[in-house]
């Protein structure tokens, strides 16, 4: 069968059916609610930004993965590929005079151009938060602890946060004393995680042995002994400063009670341009890609004219869901309401009263017979079917047993009827 264009959606996008939408919403609200309890308030920014704003924040390399469009006046717009730059722009403009620190959260769709057939989504939801105006370890600890709680709130069973520091990599690279262009090459190789190429480059330059060994040992510098091992490998003051920061962070995260879920991992390599301090990723063994990512970025806001330090992270909602093996359960309303001729007013009042009590109620709108309505509804798991007949209601339970009760008992939740509904 040939699919017509009107039957298709663009590469890398998704339709979500009710069950899937409910799961996405549940994860997003779970994470946002957790952030709210930590004092993070949600902001909304436009899906479209000026291309210049995004490139200004993220560097020109980001331009390659943007979806762009031309405004009627000739301005180039782009769909946001993540939300941190938008939040930075917002903070540097409308929140410039707000008291610090700012605790902001966000949830929304982001867009990245991806090669067709890469299996990667071009549109996906992100939920994240930013702590702006505090350059302290305390702030880093809060963000990492909140990341742990966010993944727990999202319903991820077994996960761990790998915690590293770009300062460690920077200090190692700087300690090599390479000429500028070679340093850039070394940094690029490290960013590509090409340790074979890095080894070749470093051997060519006879760089300082302890720094070389530490760089090449990076993929193993993780776990409880990582800090000690790193300390042993490199004796430079900049490296020691970073390591003592991480040790301090460990003490705080123990106090937060989340250290069990955190592993020091000096091999975490994220964008050098953007991050300036700690960097972290959330993983679960069930999935080959990170569930969340974040870190400290003290230079981003500077580009927008306010020199405030900042730290934050974003959760990949759809990845959290694909790591969840439980799958969606079936769904059905708590009750369906049908009515006899002349009882519409009473039936609608009944439905409204039940909804006000927090129940999910669907009213029959197809004019089917009572038996058709009740059989179909109960077969797909609806709690009970109601037939409103003047001031009385026929209630059919899941098992098929029927009883007739006063309308008032159902709507007001009186006596025995109330007890049944609460079960």
């Amino acid at each position: 069968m040939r699919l017509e264009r009107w039957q298709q959606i663009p590469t890398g996008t998704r339709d979500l059916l009710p069950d899937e939408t409910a799961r996405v919403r549940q994860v997003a609200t779970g994470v946002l609610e957790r952030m709210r309890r930590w004092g993070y308030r949600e902001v909304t920014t436009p899906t479209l930004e000026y291309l210049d704003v995004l490139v200004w924040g993220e560097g020109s390399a980001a331009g390659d993965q943007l979806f762009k469009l031309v405004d009627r006046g000739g301005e180039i717009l782009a769909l946001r590929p993540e939300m941190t730059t938008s939040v930075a722009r917002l903070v540097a403009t409308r929140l410039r005079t707000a008291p610090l620190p700012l605790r902001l959260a966000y949830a929304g769709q982001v867009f990245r151009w991806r090669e067709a057939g890469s299996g990667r989504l071009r549109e996906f939801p992100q939920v994240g938060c930013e702590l702006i105006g505090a350059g302290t370890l305390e702030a880093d600890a809060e963000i990492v602890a909140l990341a742990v709680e966010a993944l727990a709130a999202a319903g991820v069973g077994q996960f761990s946060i790998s915690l590293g520091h770009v300062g460690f990599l920077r200090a190692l690279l700087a300690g090599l004393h390479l000429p500028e262009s070679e340093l850039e090459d070394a940094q690029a190789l490290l960013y590509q995680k090409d340790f074979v190429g890095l080894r070749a480059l470093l051997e060519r330059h006879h760089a300082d042995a302890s720094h070389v060994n530490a760089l090449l040992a990076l993929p193993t510098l993780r776990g409880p002994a990582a800090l000690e091992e790193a300390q042993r490998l490199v004796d430079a003051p900049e490296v020691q400063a970073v390591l003592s920061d991480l040790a301090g962070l460990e003490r705080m995260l123990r106090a937060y009670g989340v250290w069990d879920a955190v592993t020091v991992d000096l091999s975490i390599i994220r964008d050098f341009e953007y991050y300036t301090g700690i960097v972290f990723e959330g993983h679960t063994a069930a999935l080959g890609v990170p569930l969340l990512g974040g870190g400290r970025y003290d230079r981003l806001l500077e580009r927008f004219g306010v020199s405030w330090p900042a730290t934050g992270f974003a959760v990949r909602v759809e990845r959290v869901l694909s790591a969840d093996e439980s799958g969606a359960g079936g769904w059905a309303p708590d009750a369906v309401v049908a009515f006899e001729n002349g009882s519409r007013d009473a039936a609608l009042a009944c439905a409204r009263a039940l909804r006000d009590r927090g129940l999910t109620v669907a009213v029959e709108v197809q004019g089917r017979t009572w038996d058709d309505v009740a059989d179909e509804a109960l077969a797909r798991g609806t709690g009970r079917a109601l037939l409103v007949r003047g001031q009385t209601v026929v209630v059919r339970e899941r098992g098929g047993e029927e009883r007739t009760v006063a309308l008032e008992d159902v709507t007001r939740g009186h006596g025995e009827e109330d007890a049944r509904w609460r079960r």
Partner: protein
Amino acid sequence: METVTIAIPSGRLLEGTLQTLETAGYFAPGEWRTTRRLILPSTDGAIRCLIAKPVDLLTYVEYGASDLGVAGKDTLLEQAQDVYELVDLGFGFCRGIVAFPAATAEGWEAKSPLRIATKYPHVTERYFWSQGRPVEIIAMHGSVELAPQVGLADGIMDLVMTGRTLAENQLVEVAELFRSTARLVVNRVSLRSRAEAVQAVVQRLRAAVAQRAAVTSG
């Protein structure tokens, strides 16, 4: 310790990969040759190998369907996927080069626009772009050296091992883009969530490479 999955490429790099796995003690010599299965547990059960098309291999590793993989540097350069490249396995040496028909190789730089046939469109485009030379890439899946002979392209970008195919097709190398050997790559999450088991395999393969290098030079 949990079983670690390693994706190994069918084709050019298969023999070298299996020999390395044999040296590392994962398989008895020749053991793999008696089967046609695509998934193969090692003798000691520490790893299982899946045999994948070289072009798909990095995809298996990037998405974590396989913890580790063996891939040519040529594929790594072309696909630029997000994996850790940890060990140069030392076999499968070849070079990525640009070649033109002998008759036009002289003064190829003057021709514009250039049409280049290749299995490596990204690498080729990056190269010519870095040279500031406009280029039209014709992406192909095989027998690239045919393209200039039938007027499909001015020249080719391809892998050479001995240079014999070039000579037989009257092609002359004009530039070298990269040198390639087989590499051991690791998924970024496996490196963390299965750190111990993955590092154990990396160490054993590293030792096997050193052992094989010593045998070759000694």
